[in-house]
């Protein structure tokens, strides 16, 4: 009986509080029999005080200095008995030098958030104007680890079989048209699981859900008066705590339960959960920013500092987390392990991950310890690891990110080449050929395989798919920065009219282009990622940087499903097509040879003439054939598929290669045809009358299936 252990009786007192020396591990606040173990680290602090608040109170309930004998090395640890775990908030005061030049910014007037706090109060309801006079708004809360997971565990779906759906937790259901009972929350996503399952995606990638402050740099638009928030949340306040304001139960302090319930339910329905994590910087900004946690705990350890003590800014957000400092490295690892084990998270996408490979002075490391440690960590051993392989300091590592056999990358080149191809730029055939076979030019040289490539055409950052074909340029006026923010390098094409159009030809072309994009993405080797809402033609009205838009610009308008049923139908059927054909989901790159004796190489290339691809600088046509007997390295049988893509503005007559002996070509997909003849359900594909030629319509994608 744990509660009767002799080593868990109080040995000290502070006023009415009973204490005993704590344990250094785990860092943070942990419930132990009869009390709470508080443990916090600082290399340069000279003393530490635990500050306890009753929930929501401005003045502390108590301040308990850690006795000297409670410090082990640089760690202060203490058990406080008989605390009301439900009603307590906590923080720390740290004593130490204030000497920015040497990297120290201690200030005992500030109550600091525990960097390991597992729940954080202060922004309990999204967008509720804070009481700005409240001191130390972000406070740690205690978390019970009694969630009933039943038999749940991460799904461990093969990476090549994933279709990733990137979403913003709030934006996904905040719009009144979502019909969700608790719009904009974790609970509301749960209501939409049947929709996601029906669409065919099997992994949701949640944009940042670590606690952040939507009021960071919040402001009103100078002309419209609209409130602008830190909506995306790429600015972490606490790495171990879910965003309280994303939980319908946040005001009750039950965000942990609500998120775990969502993960469990997604798993039950066959969907994995990936988190977009931001370890490159924090919400404290540069020297002018607020002191919330790290700066006051151990500035010199947590941040990359110039020799003069200023903050390096490789993130573009004011500071840079000192990821390859051994202490910070351990914190990042502990954090990932915590989410993998305690929340059953299936994988992580690392924002501006190139920063994770820089040394404390900012220089790129050839063998970054943090990336290696993550790759080899046993607890993370089955987690998907995805890097956004660049940073704001100019380090671009697509194709060269240190992978250790584990890391995949957001393939920025896939996005750029596919966009250029779609808009009709000539001479892209060779590049697109690389992209659709999983970018062996990027990932083949070191044996990483197509699953190193997260293929995407759109993501949260930039145009939505609809806007990609409806706008030539960005329209970010609503962000209040004179349209100067956001990328100018969009590779978009408006199909003849900027923005909404009444021209039926323009609209028909846009629909076709959206289908072309979805088709090419689902046909490509690698791991497809789609942006939430693209399947129904979600528009941000040309805004390509909706980071501050908690508004109809960013919220998914579910009425688009009714307006664009053909887009949704196509997206759903094309995704199903990918799942139905293992020949599209290879773990290894194609070899351009016949290694199963089928008489056909695993992949062959064609153009308007069979067996003669046009790699010239003026080419706008490309076709390829995937031999079904080579599916999954020849271990499973599939149909042979032939895909033809044309971005030419007139129809092109494609000569077809002969289908395998005894089989005939059937039409599975033809984006040149209006719905419902743009895509056919399995078994419903019409047989092609002329087996040797196919007239591919202007700017269209055709997929034939041999059976």
């Amino acid at each position, binding site marked *: 009986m744990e509660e009767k252990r002799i080593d868990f009786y109080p040995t000290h007192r502070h006023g009415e509080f009973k204490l005993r020396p704590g344990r250094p591990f785990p860092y943070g606040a942990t419930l132990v029999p009869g009390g709470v173990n508080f443990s916090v680290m600082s290399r340069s602090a000279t003393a530490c005080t635990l500050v306890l608040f009753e929930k929501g109170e401005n003045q502390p309930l108590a301040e308990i200095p850690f006795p000297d004998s409670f410090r082990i090395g640089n760690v202060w640890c203490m058990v406080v008995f008989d605390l*009301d775990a*439900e*009603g307590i908030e906590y923080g720390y005061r740290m004593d130490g030098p204030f000497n920015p030049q040497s990297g120290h910014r201690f200030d005992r007037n500030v109550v600091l958030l525990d960097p390991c706090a597992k729940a954080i109060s202060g922004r309990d309801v999204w967008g509720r104007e804070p009481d700005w006079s409240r001191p130390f708004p972000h406070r740690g809360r205690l978390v*019970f680890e*009694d*969630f*009933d997971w039943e038999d749940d565990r991460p799904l461990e779906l093969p990476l090549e079989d994933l279709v990733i759906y990137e979403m913003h937790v709030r934006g996904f259901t905040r719009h009144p048209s979502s019909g969700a*009972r*608790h719009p904009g*929350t974790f*609970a509301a996503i*749960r209501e939409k699981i049947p929709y996601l399952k029906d669409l065919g995606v099997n992994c949701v990638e949640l944009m940042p859900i670590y606690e952040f402050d939507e009021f960071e740099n919040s402001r009103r638009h100078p002309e419209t008066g609209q409130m602008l928030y830190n909506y995306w949340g790429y600015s972490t306040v606490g790495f171990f705590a879910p965003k309280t304001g994303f*939980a*319908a*139960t946040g005001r*009750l*302090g*039950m965000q942990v*339960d*609500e998120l*775990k*319930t*969502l993960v*469990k*339910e997604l798993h039950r329905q066959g969907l994995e959960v990936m988190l977009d994590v931001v370890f490159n910087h924090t919400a404290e900004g540069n020297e002018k920013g607020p002191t919330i946690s790290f700066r006051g705990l151990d500035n010199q350890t947590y941040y990359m500092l110039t020799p003069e003590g200023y903050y390096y800014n490789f993130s573009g957000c004011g500071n840079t987390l000192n990821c390859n400092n051994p202490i910070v490295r351990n914190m990042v690892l502990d954090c990932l392990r915590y989410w993998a084990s305690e929340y059953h998270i299936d994988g992580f996408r690392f924002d501006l991950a190139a920063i994770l490979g820089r040394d404390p002075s900012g220089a790129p490391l050839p063998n970054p310890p943090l990336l290696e440690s993550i790759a080899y960590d046993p607890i993370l051993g089955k987690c998907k690891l995805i890097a956004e392989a660049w940073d704001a300091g100019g380090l671009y590592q697509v194709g060269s990110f240190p992978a250790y056999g584990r890391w995949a990358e957001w393939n920025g080149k896939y996005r750029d080449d596919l966009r250029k191809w779609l808009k009709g730029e000539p001479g892209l055939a060779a590049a697109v050929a690389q992209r659709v076979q999983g970018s062996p030019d990027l990932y083949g040289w070191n044996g990483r395989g197509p699953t190193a490539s997260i293929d995407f055409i759109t993501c949260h950052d930039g145009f939505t798919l609809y806007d990609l074909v409806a706008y030539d340029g960005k329209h970010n006026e609503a962000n209040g920065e004179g349209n100067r923010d956001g990328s100018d390098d969009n590779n978009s094409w408006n199909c003849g009219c900027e923005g909404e159009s009444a021209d039926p030809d323009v609209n028909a072309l846009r629909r076709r282009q959206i289908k072309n994009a979805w088709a090419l993405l689902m046909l490509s080797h690698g791991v497809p990622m789609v942006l939430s809402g693209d399947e129904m033609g979600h528009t941000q009205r040309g805004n390509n940087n909706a980071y501050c838009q908690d508004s109809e610009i960013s919220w998914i308008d579910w009425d688009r499903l009714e307006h664009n049923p053909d887009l949704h139908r196509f997206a759903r059927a094309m995704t199903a097509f990918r799942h139905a054909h293992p020949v599209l989901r290879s773990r290894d790159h194609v070899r351009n040879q016949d290694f199963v004796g089928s008489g056909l190489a695993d992949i062959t290339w064609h153009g308007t003439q069979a067996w003669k691809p046009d790699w010239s600088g003026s080419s706008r046509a490309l076709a390829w054939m995937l031999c079904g007997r080579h599916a999954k390295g020849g271990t499973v049988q599939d149909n042979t598929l032939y895909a033809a893509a044309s971005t030419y503005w007139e129809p092109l007559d494609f000569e077809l290669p002969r289908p395998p002996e005894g089989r005939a070509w059937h039409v599975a997909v033809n984006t040149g045809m209006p719905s419902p003849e743009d895509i056919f359900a399995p078994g419903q594909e019409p047989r092609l009358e002329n087996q040797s030629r196919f007239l591919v319509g202007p700017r269209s994608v055709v997929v034939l299936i041999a059976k």
Partner: protein
Amino acid sequence: MAFNVDLVMKGSEAHLTLSGELDAVSAGALKGTVETAAGNNPTKLIMHMQNLSFMASAGLRVLIFAKQKMGEQVGITLIGCQAPVRSTLEMSGFHRSVYLQDAE
């Protein structure tokens, strides 16, 4: 309104009748009663919630405790939850672990 909980065993069923407001302070009393009920090795735990007007997260924690204390084979039924209590259960997802039943 003060919290109150009564335990009655009806055969192998443990019936708990809750009333008032279940907050962090009163959760301890419920936890004690659940432990007493568990000591009788019931096959079912029936909680009559009609007169419970409020449940803080501490109350939910006791339900989780009950579920884990009794084991999977003991079904927990909550009868007649008022709207705010039901909403809390649904938002947090705990309604999937128990049976919710309308009052007769």
